[in-house]
Every structure is written in C-alpha cells, then in structure tokens.
C-alpha cells in the first residue's frame, strides 16, 4: 500500500470516527433528548449533528472520487476535521458561559495533568486532529520524493 493511500485511509478514519462519536454521544438523554434543555438548544444540537454527518460524507466522497485535483480534495477533507474539532480548544474562552461538560459536577473522567483539567472531548479532538495531520503528511511524502 502506498503512503498516499494510507494517508487517505487515516483521514477517512478521522472523518468517520468524528461523526460516529459525535452522534453516539449526543443522541441521548444527556444532550438531544435532555428534558432540561430548551427546545431550540436541542434543535441546534440536531442541526450540528446532521450538518456534521453531511459534511463528513462530502469529505469522504471528495477524498475517494476520481478527481483532476486530488490534492485539493485531500486538503478539503482535512480542513473539515480541523473546522469541527479545533474549536473544542477555544470555544469556552471565546464564548463565556459555555462548558465542555453537559452536566456540571460529574468529573470522574476529567484528567488532571499538571494542575489543568483535560476533558475527554478535548482529548478526542486532539487525537483526531493529530491523526488528520499525520494522514495529510503521509499523502505528501510520495509527492515530495517525486
């Protein structure tokens, strides 16, 4: 298997896992069907999930379709992952009042590293961004080596 194909497989994995994990985590009573949530908040969560699934399908299609510009397709697929998962690192600073936890006070899975709280969703975001970066560079290796 050449490195370009391996890189594309890794980017595809990051795209699909991101969508699957997001739906698996939100499509339940803690988020989308949480009776304490405002109906419009549920609407926006559903909108986000469906948009993510659609954009993920678009990214996978871009990656694997026959294209005169495969490099552009790879960049688009990578940027989809970056666009969705990078905000996990700054949303709570950008918009006061937001939280990485759906239920405050439940923190057994929050890691404490060097005095900092590391939330599991941020770990997932970081992992998927790392995978995408690795996948992207693998697609570049053969091009750089001619």
């Amino acid at each position, binding site marked *: 298997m050449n490195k370009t194909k*391996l890189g594309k497989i890794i980017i595809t994995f990051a795209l699909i896992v991101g969508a699957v994990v997001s739906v698996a985590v939100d499509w*339940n009573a*803690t988020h989308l069907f949480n009776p304490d949530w405002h109906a419009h908040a549920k609407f926006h969560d559903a909108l986000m999930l469906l948009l993510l699934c659609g954009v993920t399908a678009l990214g996978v299609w871009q990656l694997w379709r026959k294209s005169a510009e495969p490099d552009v397709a790879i960049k688009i697929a990578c940027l989809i992952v970056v666009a969705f998962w990078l905000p996990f690192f700054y949303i709570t600073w950008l918009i006061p009042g937001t939280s*990485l936890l759906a239920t405050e006070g439940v923190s*057994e899975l929050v890691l404490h590293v060097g005095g900092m709280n590391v939330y*599991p*969703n941020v770990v997932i975001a970081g992992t998927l961004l790392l*995978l995408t970066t690795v996948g992207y560079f693998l697609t570049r290796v053969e091009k750089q080596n001619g």
Partner: protein
Amino acid sequence: MLHPGGSDAGLTSGLLHPVFGLDHLLAMVSVGVVSSQLGGKNIWRVPLTFVLAMGFGGALGVGQIPLPLAEYGIAVSVVFLGAGITVANKETSARLITACVMFFGAFHGHAHGVEIPQSVSPLLYTLGFLISTATLHIFGVVIGEVATMKGFLLRGLRVVGVAVAAAGVFFLLKSIGIIA
C-alpha cells in the same frame, strides 16, 4: 457533545480503557507496527482482524462469559507482538500473524468487556474501546511506515520490539505471581 457520566459515559470509558492499560496499549500499537512491516493489504487486514476479534471477546466479557487464562493470553500477546516487531518483514507469513492476532485479540476484548462499568451502555462502551483500539493500530502503522524511511529508524524499531517483548515477559511473570 460528550460529557463524563450519564448514559453517554460508556463511550468515553470505552475510549479511554485501552489507553490506560500499558499491556493493551503496547499490544495494540504493536499490531499496527507489525502489520506495516508485513506490508500490502496486511496493513489494514491484520488490524481489522484484531478489532473484530476484540469485538467478539468484548461481547463474551460484557456477557460475563469466562475466557480461561485471559490475563496470560494478554501478556503472551505482548511478548509475541514485541517479537513480531523485531523479526517481521514482507516475507513473514501474514496468515500466521493474522491467526495469532485473532487469537490474542479475543483476550484483549474479553478483558475490556468484563471490566465494563455497571452504569454505562454496553454498546457505546464496546464502540468506544473498538474505536480506541483502531486508533492505536493506526498510530502503530504510522510508526512502522515512518521507520521504513530511514535505516537507523528501522533498526531502532527492532530494538523497541525487544523492549516490548521484555515488557510482555514482565506482565506474564506478574500474572503468574512470580513478580509482585
């Protein structure tokens, strides 16, 4: 999305479980490295076999169906895969490696399944540890691929394989009770 606790905590617990057990972590990354050394379609076939076997073992574990000598199986898998990193190449029998990976994957899955927290969804927990396992395989494949770019990296990787096998021997002795 995602919060710890509640009905979705199963996914998070499952995702984190393989990462925080050194024996699981070493075995899963090693599966990726070995599959990369075998090359060709084995790069995805071997890890996929491990993930499927884990799913089977995990189902047994979630159902609390016993799998004899599972702890020993996990330790031996680390020894085997460490040795695999040291010696495997494109001429190595992919069928033998795949069969062994299938055998050992069931032990790892069983260990995850029996340790499922009572408050979580078995389906999401299983999905979590399978995704995490596949991710660790990918990192292993990438390590293997990067190592092929430079001779000294490949030689270094072979030495790492010896260290992984030694860690497996340590896990085995600990399981048997020779080391406290």
